[in-house]
């Protein structure tokens, strides 16, 4: 069934995959060079591992469960401002942790908006602190990602199928079974695995909203081992545990995803004759309203606090914003160089297991990779001089699993549907990329680039370990302001950061969808 002759060969992709593995393995070699035999894993660490897995699994399942109706509603409704809303709904995913936590507390905290409303209505208040708070925060962060991945899937269903379904007058249940379930089976496992891995590496959010040391995650234990005990052996060991957990989740998910042939349609705009009923419309409207409320209210809190802080922002913030932008652009470039060939390589293989490689950068803890590279670079060059490029490279690694999840399905569809035509026309190598792959994957490339750029802008990354005053990034500057009691100015910087990340995301996403349907 697998096509024999492929217009794009996997060699460069395999090479990129090997480079990613190499980057991470080398960082552990670096760590190994400096690690002394430390204390192994104690009961505290095991408790952390258990808690981490439980909260990550819950967060992943709930994020996807809520994302399904939200994405479906967004996919089948057209309304004014839909494009902007979809972009805005993506914002929580790129928020720096500390900003998001304060935003969530403004809404759901002890004296937050929700409790104020409940009190006014004479109802008992709710406490956000506990594992439910951790899960709530993680759903807040990751619902946007799951929604976007699903929405992308929904929009990739050829419009002809909905037309055919309408002509045959299929009842909703049949339509769900024949069109939507196959789609969900394709997307849900991968999205859930990805969110599981993100939540696996959560640290400050889990601790703060979990209400204390009960909510200790592996990443916190890594940080403690590294920063407080300087026990590189234990830190590396914990990092490997995290890697193993992430790897197993990814392999299970990719194994579940069935590999059945997909066929492209004629790229008409989807028309949904099947969802014109009033009940369905009301359901969709309610879902969009609920989802938007949950995702946008904390964002509104962040915006309000930020607007108050903007006038107090020191001029140095703008310089760091420039640094952040340049790091983001660099990480997008690096990401595309790695992700595109890798996606092609994965898409030409029958099984998708190789995609798990993309996750190792994210799950091995950026702190540890950064430290490993610091150790390796230090004897040869000044790591501080390379702080920004190294940060960009590591940010690209962090973005890789998202990019692959976005690119691979469409890449597979493109290669499966067009390889005969491409072979007939003699399209191979670069010309296949130029005339077939890049044009057909343009929306996905834009989305992946935007996501990576936005993540890179918002991420503190490894730069905190070593940075010259002039090489600070915007998130680092924000933390510095907070450290100097300038909380209002920091809120202003946070707003600037969110705006910048969103603008970058929107620009890339837009470039990808230009001359496509809105």
């Amino acid at each position, binding site marked *: 069934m697998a096509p024999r002759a492929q217009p794009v060969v996997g060699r460069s992709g395999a090479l990129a995959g090997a480079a990613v593995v190499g980057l991470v393995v080398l960082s552990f070699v670096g760590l190994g060079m400096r690690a002394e035999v430390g204390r192994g894993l104690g009961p505290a660490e095991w408790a952390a591992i258990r808690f981490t897995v439980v909260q990550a699994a819950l967060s992943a399942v709930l994020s996807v469960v809520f994302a399904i109706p939200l994405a479906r509603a967004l996919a089948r409704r057209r309304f004014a401002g839909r494009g902007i809303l979809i972009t805005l709904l993506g914002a929580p995913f790129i928020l720096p942790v500390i900003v998001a936590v304060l935003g969530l*507390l403004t809404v759901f905290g002890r004296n937050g908006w929700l409790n104020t409303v409940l009190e006014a209505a004479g109802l008992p208040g709710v406490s956000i602190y506990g594992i439910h708070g951790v899960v709530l925060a993680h759903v807040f962060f990751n619902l946007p990602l799951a929604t976007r991945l699903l929405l992308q899937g929904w929009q990739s269903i050829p419009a002809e199928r909905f037309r055919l379904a309408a002509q045959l007058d299929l009842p909703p249940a049949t339509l769900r079974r024949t069109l939507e379930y196959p789609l969900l089976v394709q997307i849900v496992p991968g999205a859930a695995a990805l969110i599981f891995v993100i939540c696996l590496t959560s640290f*400050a959010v889990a601790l703060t909203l979990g209400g204390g040391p*009960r909510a200790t995650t592996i990443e*916190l234990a890594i*940080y403690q081992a590294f920063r407080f005990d300087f026990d590189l052996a234990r830190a590396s060991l914990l990092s490997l545990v995290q890697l193993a957990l992430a790897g197993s989740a990814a392999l299970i998910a990719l194994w579940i995803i069935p590999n059945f042939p997909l066929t492209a349609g004629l790229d008409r705009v989807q028309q949904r004759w099947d969802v014109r009923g009033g009940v369905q419309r009301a359901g969709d409207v309610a879902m969009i309203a609920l989802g938007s409320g949950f995702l946008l209210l904390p964002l509104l809190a962040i915006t309000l606090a930020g607007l108050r802080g903007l006038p107090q922002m020191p001029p140095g913030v703008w310089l760091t914003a420039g640094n952040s932008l340049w790091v983001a652009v660099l990480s997008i470039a690096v990401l595309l160089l790695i992700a595109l060939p890798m996606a092609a390589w994965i898409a030409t293989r029958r099984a998708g297991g190789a995609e798990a490689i993309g996750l190792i950068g994210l799950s091995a803890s950026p702190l540890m990779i950064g430290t490993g590279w610091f150790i390796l670079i230090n004897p040869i060059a000044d790591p501080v001089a390379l702080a920004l490029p190294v940060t960009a490279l590591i940010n690209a690694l962090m973005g890789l699993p998202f990019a692959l999840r976005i690119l691979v399905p469409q890449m597979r569809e493109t290669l499966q549907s067009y390889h005969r035509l491409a072979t007939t026309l003699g399209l191979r190598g670069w010309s296949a990329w130029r005339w077939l792959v890049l044009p057909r994957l343009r929306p996905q490339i834009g989305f992946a680039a935007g996501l990576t750029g936005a993540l890179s802008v918002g991420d503190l990354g490894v730069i905190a370990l070593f940075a010259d005053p002039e090489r600070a990034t915007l998130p680092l500057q924000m933390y510095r302001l907070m450290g*100097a009691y300038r*909380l209002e100015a920091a809120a202003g910087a946070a707003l600037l950061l969110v705006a910048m990340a969103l603008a970058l995301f929107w620009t890339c996403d837009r470039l990808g969808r230009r001359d496509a349907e809105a």
Partner: protein
Amino acid sequence: MIILSLRPLQTKGTIMRRTLLATTLLMAGPALAETPVLTVYAGDYFTSEWGPGPRIEEGFEAICDCDLQFSTGDLLPRLMLEGARTKADVVIGLTSDVTARARATGLFAPHGQDNGALTLPIDWTDDTFLPFNYGHTAFIYNETLMDTPPASFDALLAMPDDIKIVIQDPRTSISGLALLLWVDAVYGEDAGAVWEQLAPKILTVTKDWSSSYGMFTDGEVDMVLSYTTSPAYHMFAEDDFTKKAAIFPEGHYFMTETVAKLSRTEVPELADAFLAYVLSEDFQRMIPTANWSLPSALPEQDWPEGWSDLPLPEAVLFYDEDEAEARKAEAIETWRRALSQ
């Protein structure tokens, strides 16, 4: 478009600076080329516009005929990773909790200054790490929102459980660790029971001081673990006199940040001059408002106006580095167990 124009501009700046520098060097001959550089590693907050860094640089360069360059980052991990290859001549900002570990690296030389010049509330005899500021752990409250703040640590424990406080995690934050040593110094063997009493009042634990303090100023908690000097920021920078530190007669845990000289420095005289500058009146007078902490070598009558009115504890508790190091692991385990129930 903006994206594209940014980097070239910066590069051009660097090139221009370099060309300018090269031309200047060529014209001025060896005199300028030899302007010595003193590399000072500092904590992250140090070099922001409101941190003490820029003013220290200005003050020292005015007397040293040198170029002081700050390099910021995560101090101790960075030093330990760099080891003997470190470029630092001087390190500023190592807290008293990590000096034992820093000393063990063998990278530091005696500071050579007279500890007798210090005006700390405790006796300081360390010949390697020289304090440049100090403060104490304290719980901060807003007096307009809290009528009867606790007058002692015992009173804090006895407060109703609907009073909520936020603290920092001792495993990730220096101030969080200081709180544990504070409880240990006051209550010793009973620390476990104390934590169980405090647990229902602890709304949550944050990774770092900033998040905790943000939760306090946002009104999410009644009290926050911070420093006795925190109200000073609100008083002198914001004209806000509502934030107070609850002063406990049992005593408060002492914290200090130090400066130290690397033994491998290639500019030892400059490093010595910098250490002497740290004890100078110019530096010490700047510390309160630039660092929001108390100066280590300045009599109280010379503090900036209003600072001697700041309520400070009579009794000061402090473990020297060996004792702190010895008690740390057990204190953290006691804390973790009590709060995990």
